[in-house]
């Protein structure tokens, strides 16, 4: 029987940790607060070291807190990041998304900068800024704004806008231990990159990566995973700081028409066709399906709009045959024409359309001893979100109590 308007808008008769108020996905003020309280203070995945493999290689990154960044590998081999903003009149310094620049030179007035962010070129410097009494501005005053940068966990470049932030290791902790041998034994290399701009809230994409009850959406997963032994034994494991691991199991790729085992092109230390997946707060995911590592990193553009970057990686040492195999494996379910990615994006697109216009609460109440269809991954994310935001996800007008900030199996 359908519900009346009053019934529909009533809070669910569930613990407050088991549902989310729709305003968390739609309110512009909450989105602005997220930029300040979460994205500006958290390590974000900007790119992979293979995208800046040579000295003076650079890559641009649109940071979710609003700053446009440059990631550059110096002549000393170190990777650094800077605001992609000329300190003179605020022009963009590097327009192309990647390239190689011994000097990063602003097109406007030819101010130029080196890989350490030093201003090394200032046309007619003395004529404009110096008199017999001295200089009002010197090159030393005009360096670029540098951003904290660390490389790790598979060679990914992480950045943090907060000058006072702790090390990356404190944020990630042991969340990626399940696949660290696979991703850190030898260098990786990005072989595809694309992005999707979707009219939805970024958390809805992260939720989709954090719950596997939605395997019903994918015929590929129903055939290759759900119908296979061990699927329902997979455990969801929460980690500090809002991260969650989805336990591995053996995938039977050959059960889907036209697909085959990925065993021959596995990652180091791997046998068979395992599937490792870790969701990292606040919006990026490591997804290792035997032969291909996919990284999702989100760049929220507004409360109802997000840009998702997809990178897929193999080993830098791949032979042409191994790389070809990885590409084929990737394309079956991932990429813009993959079977699963389109389905996932269609679903979050549908949420983005429906939630602002009619949903009151999003329910995340499945409890199955933290196994694969338990929604503990989402609950764990929102406990961290509530802690950071000082707002209760089930009622963002209220501050969370201590009991709302812990996630243990069965709660």
């Amino acid at each position, binding site marked *: 029987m359908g519900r009346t308007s009053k019934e529909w808008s009533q809070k669910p008769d569930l613990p407050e940790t088991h549902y989310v108020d729709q305003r968390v996905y739609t309110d512009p003020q909450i989105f602005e607060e997220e930029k300040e309280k979460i994205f500006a203070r958290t390590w974000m995945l900007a790119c992979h070291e293979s995208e800046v493999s040579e000295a003076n290689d650079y890559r641009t990154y649109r940071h979710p807190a609003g700053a446009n960044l440059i990631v550059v590998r110096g002549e000393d081999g170190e990777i650094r990041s800077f605001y992609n903003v000329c300190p003179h009149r605020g022009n963009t310094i590097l327009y192309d998304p990647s390239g190689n620049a011994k000097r990063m030179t602003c097109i406007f007035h030819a101010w130029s900068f080196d890989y350490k962010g030093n201003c090394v070129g200032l046309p007619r410097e003395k004529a404009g800024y110096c008199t017999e009494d001295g200089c009002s501005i010197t090159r030393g005053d005009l360096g670029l704004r540098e951003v904290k940068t660390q490389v790790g966990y598979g060679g990914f470049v992480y950045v943090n806008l907060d000058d006072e932030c702790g090390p990356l290791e404190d944020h990630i902790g042991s969340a990626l231990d399940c696949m660290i041998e696979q991703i850190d034994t030898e260098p990786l290399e990005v072989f595809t990159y694309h992005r*999707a701009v979707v009219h939805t809230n970024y958390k809805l994409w992260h939720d989709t990566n954090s719950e596997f009850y939605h395997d019903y959406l994918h*015929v590929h997963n129903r055939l290759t995973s759900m119908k296979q032994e061990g699927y329902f034994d997979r455990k969801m494991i929460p980690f500090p700081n809002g991260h969650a691991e989805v336990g591995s199991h053996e995938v039977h790729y050959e059960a889907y*028409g036209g697909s085959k085992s990925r065993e021959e092109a596995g990652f180091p230390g791997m046998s068979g066709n395992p599937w490792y997946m870790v969701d990292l707060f606040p919006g990026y995911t490591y997804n290792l399906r035997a032969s291909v590592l996919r990284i999702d990193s989100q760049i929220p553009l507004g409360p109802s709009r997000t840009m998702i970057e997809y990178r897929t990686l193999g080993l830098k040492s791949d032979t042409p045959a191994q790389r070809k195999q990885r590409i084929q494996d990737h394309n079956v379910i991932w990429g813009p024409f993959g079977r699963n990615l389109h389905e996932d994006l269609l679903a979050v697109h549908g949420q983005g359309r429906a939630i602002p216009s009619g949903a009151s609460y999003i329910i995340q109440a499945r409890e199955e001893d933290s196994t694969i269809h338990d929604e503990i991954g989402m609950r764990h994310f929102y406990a961290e979100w509530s802690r950071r935001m000082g707002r209760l996800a089930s009622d963002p007008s209220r501050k969370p109590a201590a009991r709302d900030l812990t996630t243990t199996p069965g709660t």
Partner: protein
Amino acid sequence: MDTEIKASRDVQEEVRELIYRSCLYLDNQDFAGWLGLCAPDLRYTITAYSPEIRKEMVWLDHDREGMESLFDMLPKHNSDHSPLTRHASVYLVEHDGSANEASAVTSLVVYKTQLDGGATELFAVGKYFDTVRLEGETLLLTSRSVRLDTRELGIGSHLPL
């Protein structure tokens, strides 16, 4: 008119017609019709160059069997049912009479029309690079490389372009 030149022009015209027919078949989701234009040794790819990672990318790569399998599985998937419309302009056709082959370059624009309301938006631009073989009186597509300029494709698609 020289007989060979006339024959070559006839082939060029038939190649154009084959390319336009291939678009109509896909627009109508008549996959059997589309496969009817293809040779047993068909190779179909969708590729793009990424300026972000400075690499060539392959997003779809199938032989004929792979395309048949893709089409067979389509009804079992959850797909966006908004139709795609292909607008093709054949720029070049080159006929190699000695090899009974022709190659063609076609400009491609793909639109997506929302089922709910009928608004049409641009989905992708790119080119077809086709190779066609003349077998008796029949022309068959032996390779189609869809080369995309567009790389941001929204929620993507289950359909070939």
